[in-house]
């Protein structure tokens, strides 16, 4: 990391620790640079795809705290920040994707697994909680009407941070509902013809692999000396 000795540090309070952060550093970088232990609430460290580093953030002058991802949010003067611990969804929104074979009953399935989706009270808490700007509430409403593809499309950018799950007063578990409609759409309707013909060809033995083909050996050495060292011991116990 570059040290910008010229710019004064940004002062903020993180989990009760008053720390100074280098200007331009993310909240996650500020936490680690302050010497604080980082053993959870961290994953991809900046790509913004894993949803692990969830924080509550309040800026000076704001009355309410908002949610964000610490790797994507830059440290600002006067911020108050705390991690939101990961909690696994323990509510029984259980289904077996493999048992779901009849697309005529898709709506019944959504109703059966996520009955609360019909109870959405349009508070938009989920929309405010989402760090990716997904229209979560609209997805919930579309899914409850059985409009699976439209609902699935809205959840394209979900990073599974579960902040919408925490925000929902009706226990709808929007993140898991979103994954349910996405997974169902793929598993029930995606049937590429090129893949299917190749699979059939392989099953009929039409795609053999030749270890001794010219392209499978180094250009100069024709001899099959290219076989690499084998695993530690030979054969099964």
């Amino acid at each position, binding site marked *: *990391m570059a040290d910008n000795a010229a710019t004064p540090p940004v002062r903020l309070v993180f989990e009760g620790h008053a720390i100074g952060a280098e200007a*331009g*550093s993310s909240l996650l970088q500020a936490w*680690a640079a302050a010497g604080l*232990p*980082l*053993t*959870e609430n*961290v*994953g*991809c*460290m*900046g*790509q*913004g*795809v*894993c949803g*692990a580093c969830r924080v509550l953030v309040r800026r000076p002058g704001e009355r309410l705290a908002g949610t964000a991802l610490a790797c*994507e949010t830059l440290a600002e003067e006067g911020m108050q920040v705390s991690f939101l611990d*990961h909690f*696994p*969804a323990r509510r029984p929104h*259980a289904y*077996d*994707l*493999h048992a779901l074979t009849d697309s005529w009953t898709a709506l019944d399935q959504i109703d059966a697994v996520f009955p609360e989706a019909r109870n959405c009270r349009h508070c938009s808490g989920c929309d405010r909680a989402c760090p990716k700007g997904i229209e979560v509430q609209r997805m919930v409403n579309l899914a409850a009407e059985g409009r699976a593809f439209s609902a699935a499309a809205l959840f*394209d*950018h979900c*990073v*599974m941070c579960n902040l919408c799950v925490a925000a929902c007063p009706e226990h709808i578990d929007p993140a*898991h509902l979103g*994954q349910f409609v*996405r*997974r*169902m759409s*793929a*598993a029930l309707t*995606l*049937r*590429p013809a*090129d*893949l299917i013909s*190749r*699979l059939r060809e*392989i099953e009929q033995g039409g*795609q*053999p*692999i030749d*270890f001794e083909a010219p*392209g*499978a*050996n*180094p250009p100069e050495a024709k001899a099959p000396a290219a*076989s*690499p*060292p*084998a*695993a*530690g*011991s030979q054969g099964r116990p």
Partner: protein
Amino acid sequence: MSGGIPHAEALAAWRARAPAPPQALPLPVPDLLERFHPDRQPGAIVPLRIGASAGLSCRAELAALLHSDSLVEDLDIAGAPLLEADVLVIGGGGAGCVAALTAARAGARVLLATKLRLGDSNTVMAEGGIQAAVGAEDSLQRHFEDTLRAGHFAADKALVAALVSDGPAVIRWLIQEGMSFDLAEGSERMGGTLLRKKPGGATAARLLSYRDFTGLEMMRALREAVLLAPGITLLDRHPALELLTDDRGRCAGAALHDLGQGRTVLARAGATVLATGGAGRLHIAGFPTSNHYGATADGLVLAYRLGAALREVDSFQYHPTGIAWPPSMEGQLVSEAARASGATLVNGLGERFVDELETRDVVAAAILREIAEGRGIAHGSGQGVFLDTPGLERAKPGILGKGLVTLTHLARRAGFDAAVEPFLVRPTLHYQNGGIAIDPEGWSGVPGLFCAGEVTGGLHGRNRMMGNALLELVAFGRRAGRAAAADARAERPRNIGLTHLADWRRALIAQGLPLTRKAPLVFPPYGNFDMATERGRAA
């Protein structure tokens, strides 16, 4: 290394010459690699001094960990709580999830232990795609040969054959788990064709994708599947510190550290699948990394101490296009999808200098050469070359907004518009080409110990092709999960303990290696948490 060409000056040169014409490498590939690849530099490689692969060439940073002593003593396990399972899976990324699902569906009771949280892994960060030979003009044989050639013919042919043969079935399996794939323009969901791109070093368009966040799409489906699967017990925040052995040398599970409670927990299992991923957070040769926070080579340390052999641990992959500026995003990846779609690389003089679709080791070495020879572009404290995304947008209008979403977001977070200004890129530590030697069932050679995913070696030789990592983790996650479930049914460990450590410590002493250095690392040093100190084992 010289100071490079100032950013503003380089921008002017790039504008004046755009679009720059293709330029062949002026020196032969072997010379380029010899002189500029980071793994070929003096002092980079040392021989391993103890263990099953003593004498094998190894990256020095990794060898230091492999030459270390255990964090666990007999005392720790004497009164520790005991968990029981048929199959213990260590690692909650893609390979671990696939192995756990496969083993559970084969009837095994599965414990899935992960250091961070389920899904926190390199898998979720994979952008480009997954290879599978589904095109009419393509074949398994071509995929086989491309993979061997890209790996400089160092890979194990039996493993590569298993990998490419599983390809199409892996895609079907993923769709059945609810993963989506992009379809060719105007194609139908039922009876259409998959969108295929050509990965660097391939002879056919074979890369399947979901936008430019294929790994995220895969991990979302896998994570939900694991959370909903009956028969899988999940242990978040439970890094493995040492594998357990029985009195016959069979792997019997692992000693885990429960980070929440700060105590040791024993997981006893009939068979163990190690799926701990890579080593980017060792920051080999001082490079930044595109890897997730937990990639600290833990699995290599554990398996090696138990007697598993390693291979190609002197070969790492430096992805050509890591972000070089701004510093807050240093090392993050700009997906190869950009180059696969036609984006070019341009030096400080506005010139191209390599075929952008060459294999990653060649492109990375070519970029390092530009920087070393003064044609790099200096911006703040960093240096790099341009990835010409504006040129790509001009050639294929709309591609940044629709096809390369992650890339466009990345630029926005860095404070510029990818359609107007090129990225400043420089190689970033990306992948561990080698690892634990396995057979086609994922067996490590140690009874009861199976491995899958980036922790293994032999599939990629000395250079991995884009799209073979996601394929590997599913193909070998399934193979290892299936084999572990079957193995656990046949054999159970008895008299479990740490019997292997006595021999290990004797070997360390015989070689004059200190017993004070402890591994696995678990977290990188800047995580401000030292496992040895935490457990009272610090030197």
